[in-house]
């Protein structure tokens, strides 16, 4: 039998026929929404980011723009850029939008207070009225192959930053409080979906799903995830083909979760997405470090460490992808 495995290269994950991929995704969205789920259309939370933009573009192509609604979900900490870009996107695809400010709901949950209390325990001078904050992995630990250890960074009035490693309880409290955001967004998306008898289209890409960069029952709560199998590089290919506004394509992916700006690389991924896509593909497809190292300009040892890191991430986030355990029939 002929061996069709391609030699590893920087182009290996590039889609050769973008139009065909889009057609197949759109056929599937149409069948999932109208036939399998028997819903009249699709609801998408739009943030002005690349993933939600591509999902919306695909949905309008599959379901018709009259059957798609984009929901803007700003809150106290959101960047105003997100709203402007989301509206630009909706305008591009002629999609109706609904804006729901969820700050009040988050206040009710104590999202901001619970988070800020934990930050103050670590950085006593932190004043949420005056300072911005974020959590992330410090640059010196980004290339480290240990599980990420997060620091809280407070941006003081004079622009100086104070960064402190988070102890366990404070780390857990900040994450738990911040996750109210994704879960409140999900609740609001389902409100509109149910009110219209529509389905919720989730926007995570392959890395978010497989590395566990999503909130269980938050942005991980959806009826279908049309780009859940696509590498970020491929999402960008689709974005260009589908005519997603250039400003959205050029925007650095951020978390838009904390008051201070923060890239996804800094928060979670620990390497640029272009490299991560290739290395993840190589790992999934059993390319050896000897094949991969020269292409990625890494030593075999470094590739092995990155593979181990991927394996660990997948293992330790497995519970996020699990449905409730209900096989209690003995």
């Amino acid at each position, binding site marked *: 039998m002929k061996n069709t495995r391609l030699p590893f290269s920087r182009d290996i994950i590039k889609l050769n026929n973008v139009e065909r991929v889009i057609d197949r995704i759109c056929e599937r969205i149409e069948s999932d929404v109208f036939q399998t789920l028997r819903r009249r259309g699709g609801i998408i939370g739009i943030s002005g980011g690349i993933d939600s933009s591509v999902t919306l573009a695909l949905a309008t192509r599959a379901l018709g723009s009259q059957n798609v609604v984009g929901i803007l979900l700003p809150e106290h900490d959101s960047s105003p850029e997100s709203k402007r870009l989301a509206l630009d996107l909706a305008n591009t695809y002629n999609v109706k939008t609904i804006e729901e400010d969820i700050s009040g709901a988050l206040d009710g949950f104590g999202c901001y207070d619970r988070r800020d209390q934990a930050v103050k325990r670590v950085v006593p001078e932190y004043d949420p009225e005056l300072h911005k904050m974020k959590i992330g992995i410090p640059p010196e630990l980004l290339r480290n192959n240990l599980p990420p250890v997060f620091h809280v960074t407070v941006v003081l009035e004079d622009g100086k930053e104070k960064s402190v490693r988070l102890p366990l309880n404070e*780390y857990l409290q900040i994450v738990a409080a911040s996750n109210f955001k994704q879960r409140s967004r999900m609740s609001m998306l389902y409100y509109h979906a149910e009110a219209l008898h529509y389905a919720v289209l989730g926007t995570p890409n392959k890395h978010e799903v497989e590395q566990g960069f999503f909130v269980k029952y938050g942005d991980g709560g959806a009826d279908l995830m049309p780009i859940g199998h696509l590498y970020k590089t491929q999402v960008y290919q689709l974005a260009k083909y589908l005519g997603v506004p250039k400003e959205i394509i050029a925007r650095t992916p951020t978390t838009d979760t904390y008051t201070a700006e923060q890239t996804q690389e800094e928060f979670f991924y620990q390497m640029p997405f272009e490299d991560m896509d290739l290395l993840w593909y190589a790992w999934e497809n059993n390319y050896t470090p000897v094949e991969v190292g020269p292409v990625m300009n890494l030593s075999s040892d470094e590739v092995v460490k990155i593979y181990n890191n991927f394996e660990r991430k997948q293992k330790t986030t497995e519970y996020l992808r699990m449905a409730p355990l209900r096989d209690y029939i003995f």
Partner: protein
Amino acid sequence: MENKLKEFIAGITFTEPAKINSNTLLFDEGIFDSMGLLSLISFLEEEYGVKVDDLELSEENFQSIKAISSFIEQKQK
């Protein structure tokens, strides 16, 4: 010291102590995630008075019970 570390790690990670030995690669085996590492850092401070700097958070120092143990010994010197 190694036994105490093993007991602690087995406890916080819900792992059978018999499945961990001094050379088990704690991260590669998926035993430890961020939460486990942070718990361990607190434990080292409370139990041994060892404060871990960011630059000391390396595989060399934390990959196994043996490595952690010799890291503690170095710090206590």
